[in-house]
């Protein structure tokens, strides 16, 4: 239920209305989006965005997205090759609140400052999509957390 998160602090319940908006952003922005749906409507814990292709050798990938009512979020990427990374914003004592869990394991320790500075949901979704798309087009996860283009 709360696996893949390391949230410490009061972030509030899942904001499924905001997630609806994020779902539209991904669905309208990229032709590779195959499916975009909640895991459940009676008990929604995440929005799942499935892509019909992935970065490099991966034949598919998926973002599991959580947006919380107090404005915090977690965008978790996983793919067919087991490459995981995560753009997060939530209280995490001793670490930056906006942080990036790097691939391939997206470990909880050793996070870096996230390059996503905006907090507006539609903009966070667009920025993360752009970063993913650049990684997809260049077949490399090296620059995922690099805001500048060209870097």
């Amino acid at each position, binding site marked *: 239920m709360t696996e893949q998160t390391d949230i*410490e602090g009061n*972030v509030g319940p899942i904001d499924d209305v905001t997630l609806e*908006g994020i779902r539209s952003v991904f669905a309208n922005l990229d032709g590779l989006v195959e499916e975009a749906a909640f895991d459940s*409507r009676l008990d929604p814990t995440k929005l799942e965005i499935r892509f019909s292709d992935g970065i490099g050798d991966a034949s598919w990938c998926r973002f599991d997205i959580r947006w919380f009512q107090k404005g915090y979020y977690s965008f978790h990427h996983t793919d067919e090759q087991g490459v995981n990374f995560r753009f997060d914003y939530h209280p995490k004592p001793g670490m930056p609140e906006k942080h990036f869990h790097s691939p391939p394991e997206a470990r909880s320790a050793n996070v870096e400052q996230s390059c996503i500075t*905006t907090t507006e949901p*539609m903009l966070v979704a667009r920025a993360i999509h752009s970063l993913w798309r*650049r990684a997809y087009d260049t077949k490399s996860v090296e620059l995922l957390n690099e805001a500048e283009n060209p870097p």
Partner: protein
Amino acid sequence: MTSPDAPTEHWEGDVNEAAVEDWKADTTTFERIRQVIDVTTEPQSAKQIAERARVSEPTARKHLAALAETGRVKTITTDTGSRYMRAPQMLAMQRIADIHREHTKDEIRQAIQDLKSERRDFQERYDVGDIDELTLKLEPDDDGWQDLTRWQQVEQNLEIAQAALTLYDFDPDDSRSAAARASEGRTATRERGALGDNPAHSAA
């Protein structure tokens, strides 16, 4: 839109700023106001909403008034002017409509039972009556925060599931009988809640 063969078509400069430019290019001022207010859970002034949506303040006021008219926006009048936020009931309807389409009445009842038992587990494990008591007990690096988040989720799910159950057979216009008469001779449709065929869904 980029294609897989066009790796050069990425943004220029900072990705956060590029996101703003793309958003402005893809949406009308009305759409941006609606998208911003839909994610606004604390009351804000028209000026704040305007800044977030990258529109002028008069434009924001105009669209906020229109959205308030449809019930999508809640307006709060204060000494220092109006504040705006999303209307919670309006937005819960979307989820209730989805639940009515995807679940039977029994499934909703079962979900309510499960959620209530999950709530009891939290009350017993932490020896507290409600979420506020648990919040007071937790320290910043406690392990209990995930449970707190989950418990908040359980309470929200319960509210929605109970509203969905109450509205399941809601049909003051007797629209289903009318629909059945209209399609006389066809086989019976699958059980579905009153809002389950709400055409508003596709507009989400």
